[in-house]
Each structure stands twice: as structure tokens, then as C-alpha cells.
């Protein structure tokens, strides 16, 4: 794996993009015109090569007002996306305001879909503020800091999440800020030693 780190940027040159990557890139290229975003959870490990599929891509966004959401909604629908939860943008916006996720897929499909939420917790806000940018050619995808992503996957705790955490830790072992990793593990009250994540 050829990885280049430069500040908050990670360059993955010559990555062959999958249809899932292209789906995410197309979506975030629209989304970023309206608000700040960060991709969290499973897709992060898939972006770096984990050999599994996913039915949804979790994206957190900075809160936007109703008017901006309606513009985003219009552009997405114009570009052949649809919202699975409801047709009415007001209803969708209320869901986001209530801390719920709205799901968006390519027209006439259900999976894969984007699970979009407003940031809520302090850790959500840290993910958004301290995001990293993964460059695959000319395109960039904002992802949660790896030092937070790994403990978060351990916190979620399913077998799949633990495997994602171990994969990311193994891939980025020499690049991780161990102090930050330890700090986030402490905040989330998770231990990784049993899985080889020893900080």
C-alpha cells in the first residue's frame, strides 16, 4: 500500500475506485457545496482496502437551516437521488433536527444508501472539526480522524466493528498518534489490548 501523509491529507495514489467509492465521491461532491461533512464508521475501513461490503455509508454534517436543506434536497433529486424516509423536505428536515438519520440512495435503488445525520455529540463535533482528507486522484473524501475511528469501532463492539478497528490499526500502525488514540480510548472507555490494539 502506498500512502502519503501530509498534515491532515492522506494520499492513496493509483487506487482503483469501486462503484461504492464512486457513489460516495459523487454524493459528497454535491453535499460539500452546502455544508461541512465527515464520513464515519464502516466505509472508512473499506476505503483503505478492507474486503467487505456495506449497505450504508454514515455521514455526519454540520447543522444547516431548512432553506439550505431544501436546496440540497432539490439538487440531489435533480441528480437522480431519492430520500428513502419521506418525500417532503420539511419532514426530512424535522427528522434531522430530532437527531434521526435520513437515508439517500440512487433513484430506484435502496442499497447502498447514505445515512445522513446532523452532528450531535462532542465526539461527532471533533470528527467534523478534525477530519482528515483522503485524496484518491483529484477527488477528496473527508473522514473521521483515525485515532478516533479505531476506539469508536471498538465502542460499537460487534464482531464486524472490532475487525474494522483491528484492520485500521494494523494498516496505520506507524502513522497513528498514540497519545490521541489513548485519549479517545479512555474517553470511550474501551480497551483494545485483547485484540492487539495495545497503546
Amino acid at each position, binding site marked *: 500500500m*502506498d500512502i502519503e501523509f501530509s498534515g491532515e491529507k492522506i494520499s492513496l495514489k493509483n487506487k482503483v475506485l469501486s*462503484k461504492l467509492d464512486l457513489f460516495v465521491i459523487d454524493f459528497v461532491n454535491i453535499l460539500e457545496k452546502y455544508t461541512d461533512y465527515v464520513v464515519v464508521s464502516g466505509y472508512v475501513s473499506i476505503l483503505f482496502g478492507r*474486503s467487505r461490503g456495506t449497505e450504508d455509508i454514515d455521514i455526519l454534517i454540520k447543522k444547516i437551516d431548512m432553506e439550505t436543506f431544501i436546496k440540497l434536497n432539490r439538487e440531489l433529486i435533480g441528480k437522480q437521488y431519492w430520500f428513502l424516509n419521506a418525500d417532503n423536505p420539511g419532514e426530512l428536515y424535522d427528522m434531522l433536527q430530532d437527531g434521526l438519520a435520513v437515508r439517500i440512495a440512487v433513484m430506484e435503488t435502496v442499497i447502498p444508501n447514505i445515512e445522513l445525520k446532523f452532528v450531535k455529540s462532542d465526539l461527532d463535533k471533533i470528527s467534523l472539526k478534525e477530519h482528515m482528507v483522503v485524496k484518491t486522484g483529484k477527488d477528496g473524501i473527508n473522514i473521521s480522524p483515525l485515532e478516533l475511528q479505531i476506539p469508536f469501532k471498538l465502542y460499537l463492539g460487534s*464482531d464486524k466493528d472490532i475487525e474494522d478497528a483491528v484492520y485500521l490499526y494494523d494498516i496505520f500502525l506507524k502513522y497513528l498518534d498514540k497519545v490521541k488514540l489513548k485519549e479517545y480510548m479512555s474517553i470511550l472507555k474501551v480497551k483494545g489490548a485483547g485484540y492487539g490494539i495495545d497503546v
Partner: protein
Amino acid sequence: MESMFDKKQNLEERLKFVRFYSQWVKSVPNEVWSRQQADFIDSLFENARNFSLDAKKYLKTIKR
């Protein structure tokens, strides 16, 4: 009663594979691992077109 399926052992075996696979990914150029991954994911993507649940049923399922 002895469990028919050892969840702990299963996870350990899966983690063993994850570690083996991550070492392989690190050892080859991006074109190599990402080509294999793209072939695998693209086949899942194509298969998703045959997904039998409509949005309403799907949302109901994931709420459980």
C-alpha cells in the same frame, strides 16, 4: 449445555484473517489490492439491484 458455536473462537479466527489480509495489503501496490477489492465490491453492488425489499420494508427492518 455446551454451545454449538464458539463465538469467541470464531472472532479470533476472523481477526487472524484480518491481520493476514492487512499485511498483504501493505505489501503490494495500491493498484493490486484495490483492483481485487473493486472487483469484489462491484459484484456486491451489482447484486444489490436484486435487493427484494422496498424502502418502507427496508427501513422497518433496520429499525429492529
